[in-house]
């Protein structure tokens, strides 16, 4: 009746075949973001391919070296996993502050990093938005952009990537397992998403026929010493206005041997801050060192009016996350 077709895939191979051969078809997992878009006619796909019946994607596999998450693992399942909590605390902490328990019971780790931006213009289909309708202009650039990005934006789009989980995954050097018509491949998590540039409608580096099968996370001492901190407009059930996933490894002298810093709520993709990580290296883990390194986070940041407060908020969020983590080590 309505131009929306639905198909059920029995295997990932058949799913990739169908979405590869139908333009703009999308898989549906938890549906928690896709249904919002269908409801509001925001890039409604003509065909959704339900992958919930696919076997073997719901497991969290643990061994001595790594942990593998299947794409259909629900967010709450990760929170409840003791091995993940122990080896990758930042991931569990990011998920605990994601959405609500109800949403997390449905939402999957495969769908979460591919949820669309919360940019107000993207979500209101009667306004200009280059991401939704290439060439129509960017409503947010000079509009209500309090929640938009100060990092990684272009003159075409300054939408933030909204996921918490993805920020932790970027910080902890996760690998994405991808399946497509031509077989499997691996992708560093930090290369999953694209910068908007002049093609903000292209958000990730998956080919039309490719889907996420799962992730690999390598256990490291660094990842065990990780932490996620989120700042938001209300107590719960809200995306970040700023967040930080951090990891620290200290040497015997209390100096920082290695560090990871990724931030969310401020950037167009899950954002690794290499210059902050480098600045931390070799320093004593003091509040002063944290503040100095964190200050570098806004070196290349650009504010657009309503979101100027993020220039102050971002370094403070990183410094606080590092301080809280230091207290735990």
């Amino acid at each position, binding site marked *: *009746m*309505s*131009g*929306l077709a639905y198909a059920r895939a029995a295997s990932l191979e058949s799913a990739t075949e169908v979405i590869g051969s139908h333009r703009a078809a999308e898989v549906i997992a938890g549906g928690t973001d896709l249904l*919002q878009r269908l*409801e*509001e*006619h925001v890039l409604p796909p003509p065909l959704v391919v339900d992958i919930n019946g696919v076997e073997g994607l719901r497991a969290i596999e643990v061994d001595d070296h790594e942990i593998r998450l299947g794409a259909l693992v629900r967010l709450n399942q990760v929170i409840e996993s003791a091995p993940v909590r122990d080896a990758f605390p930042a991931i569990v902490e990011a998920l605990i502050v994601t959405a609500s328990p109800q949403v997390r019971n449905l939402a999957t780790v495969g769908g979460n990093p591919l949820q669309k931006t*919360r940019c*107000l*213009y993207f*979500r*209101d289909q*009667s*306004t200009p938005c280059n991401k939704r309708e290439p060439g129509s202009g960017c*409503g947010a650039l*000079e*509009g*209500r952009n*309090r929640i938009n990005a100060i990092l990684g934006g272009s003159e075409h789009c300054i939408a933030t990537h909204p996921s918490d989980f993805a920020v932790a995954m970027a910080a902890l050097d996760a690998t994405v397992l991808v399946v497509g018509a031509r077989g499997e491949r691996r992708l560093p998590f930090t290369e999953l998403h694209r910068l908007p540039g002049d093609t903000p409608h292209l958000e990730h580096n998956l080919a039309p026929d490719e889907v996420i099968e799962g992730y690999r996370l390598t256990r490291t001492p660094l990842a065990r010493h990780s932490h996620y901190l989120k*700042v*938001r*407009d*209300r*107590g*719960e*059930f*809200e995306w970040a*206005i*700023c967040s930080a996933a951090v990891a620290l490894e200290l040497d015997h002298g209390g100096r920082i041997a290695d560090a990871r810093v990724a931030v969310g709520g401020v950037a167009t993709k899950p954002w690794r801050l290499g210059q902050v990580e480098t600045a931390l290296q070799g320093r004593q883990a003091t509040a002063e060192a944290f503040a100095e390194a964190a200050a570098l986070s806004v070196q290349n940041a650009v504010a657009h009016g*309503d*979101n*100027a*407060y993020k220039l*102050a*908020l971002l370094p*403070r*969020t990183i410094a*606080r996350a590092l301080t809280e983590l230091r207290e735990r080590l």
Partner: protein
Amino acid sequence: MGAIGKPVARVDGPAKVTGTATYAAEFHPENMAYAALVHGTIPRGWIKSIATDAAESVPGVIAVVTHLNAPRLPWKPVDAAPVDPGEGEQLRPLHSDEILFAGQPIALVIAESQETARAAAALVSFTCVPSDGAGLVFDRARARPPSDGTRESYPAEWERGDAEGAFASAPRRIEGSYLQPRLFHNAMEPHATIAAWDDEGKLTLWDKSQWVDNVRDQITRNFGLAEDEVRVISPFVGGAFGSALRCWPHVTMAAMAARIARRPVRLELTRRELYTAVGYRPYTLQDVKLAADEDGRLRSVIQTAYGLTSAYEDYGEEVLDPVGMLYDTMSARTVYRLVELDTNTPTPMRGPGAVTGVFALEMAIDEMADAMDMDPLEFRLKNYAERDLKKDLPFSSKALRSCYETAALRFGWEKRDPRRRAMHDGNMLVGYGMATAVWPAMQAPASVRIRLFANGTAVVRTAASDMGPGTYTSMTQVAADRLDLPVERVTFELGDSSLPMAPVHGGSMTMASVGNAVAAGCKKLRDDIARLDGAEDGEHPVETLMRLRRDSFEVDGAAEPGAEAGTHSSYAFGAVFAEVRVDPDFGTVRVPRLVGAYDGGVIVNPRTARSQAIGGMVQGIGMALMEAGEWDDRLGRVMNANLAEYLVPVHADVEELEAVFVESEDRIFNPLGVKGIAEIALCGVAPAIANAVWHATGLRIRELPLTPDRLLMAEQAARTS
């Protein structure tokens, strides 16, 4: 049996929690079809072309209605109801090619299913020609006084004494500008109407409404029908806060659609549509100037409000009513202005006017107290008004002093360090703040029909409504009390325009209006039965009926305001105390504690009354910290028109809430002694929190909501200045 004052559990509670309570969208007349709307996107102009064939060709579509083929309705003139703006004309949907605001409905699709209707609506294409209108930028330079036709209650100018002169010559002065953004009711239940015409041309509407009689009257006029040809049914309302006071255009469209489809049609609005299809609390900018003597006596209060209205209706509200009466000030002056925008018309939202005016006034009072180095509570007590100086009348009752004392004691106000930024909890800044709350007590004529049965049960009926506060329960209690029956033996029916007339369920006046009608009806019933041949002195009316072998006895009862309106001023009062915790790095604010004490007259049901009060506090947390419609003044749209981006408090934002009702009864105002407790509960919460944030941080942020961006930018501004 003294049912009044008992914490009776909601009589409709079991129906609500088991899902048998039927809300407007949940009726299922046989053979019902479904409607969906198409909206214009430009803020002002004309529809140039509209193409409906793609939608019409979708299987299951019954009809697509636009201004080109909509039935011409008679639109008989109608006297503005008290819930309508005093001047202007409500949007006539699908009436012409004119577009008055972005989001205006320009077509309606009727189909066999809701999904088909919505999908087909997306296929309607159209072109529009923009034109000049009132504009989209809220600019106080374009402000004008409200039109002549608007009510006395919001005069363009009002003054007692020489307020400007007193201000100029006073030793202590402060002034500031305060902004309250556009706020939305966001009740849980979306608006919905089901319309069904019968073979004789009579119309039944199942509608979400706070006033079924008004919906009947409006629809009667719009369609040129007689009063007995329209019946409006609304037994349950899932929250409204004022959004269901008026008869909005979608009600007319539902009736139109049912006439075209020749079968019942349901039109249920989507969440996004609720931001344009019904009203909202208007964006309001205010300037406040206060002056005092060296000893802390207020000499002058001058408050100017610039309220937003649409270009097609003059919506005004009593923002400035509290200014002249809340404090014992030697002089006072108010100026009220409207700014037109090309947008849909605002409408009352819980505590309309007073909530807005009190927010600015109570923040300014706090600033004045600080400027005087006085405790904010002491400053308010010093300027306590024993009399309504605005109306120059005594109060029919006023227990505000006891509200202040009770709330301060429960809160522990004496622990407040008078210095700003002086209280801490670990890294967090702690602040205490307070504010006064006020709301006019009102009564309107109401009527009821009461039937007492010889089996000891009674049924009370009226066209009142219950949007959630517990009208069903409290009215049952009044009747049980006055008939000397157990609460379980009394049934209360409401929400049907075929029942005896009742006033609007708004303005906190349902208990004063309908409650007194119930009490009067019960008295009449007892008197009439006592006068029956063979009735014996002192016996219960049920005994009389039994002995006289009468199955039942019915009376009509009514009540209306007495002469006291001319001799006394009646208000409900309250005092709200707030504690906040502010993260100095992030600018995030938490409210661990709110304590409110209220003078609301006699409390018929302390349980539902508490529920009202804490509900108002939660809404107040939202108003203070997160709620705001984000208006894009290039597009003429509220950009966050959904519940993912328009934030309201969640459980995690709400911690300790304490509500106390102080000893109070107002028998001058009405025989039951009640005043009203709905609107007052929201009043004062936001300024109490904002004053606490100032106490915690030293930042005076005069724009709501107090989001992290505002705190961080204010901190930066404070540092550079």
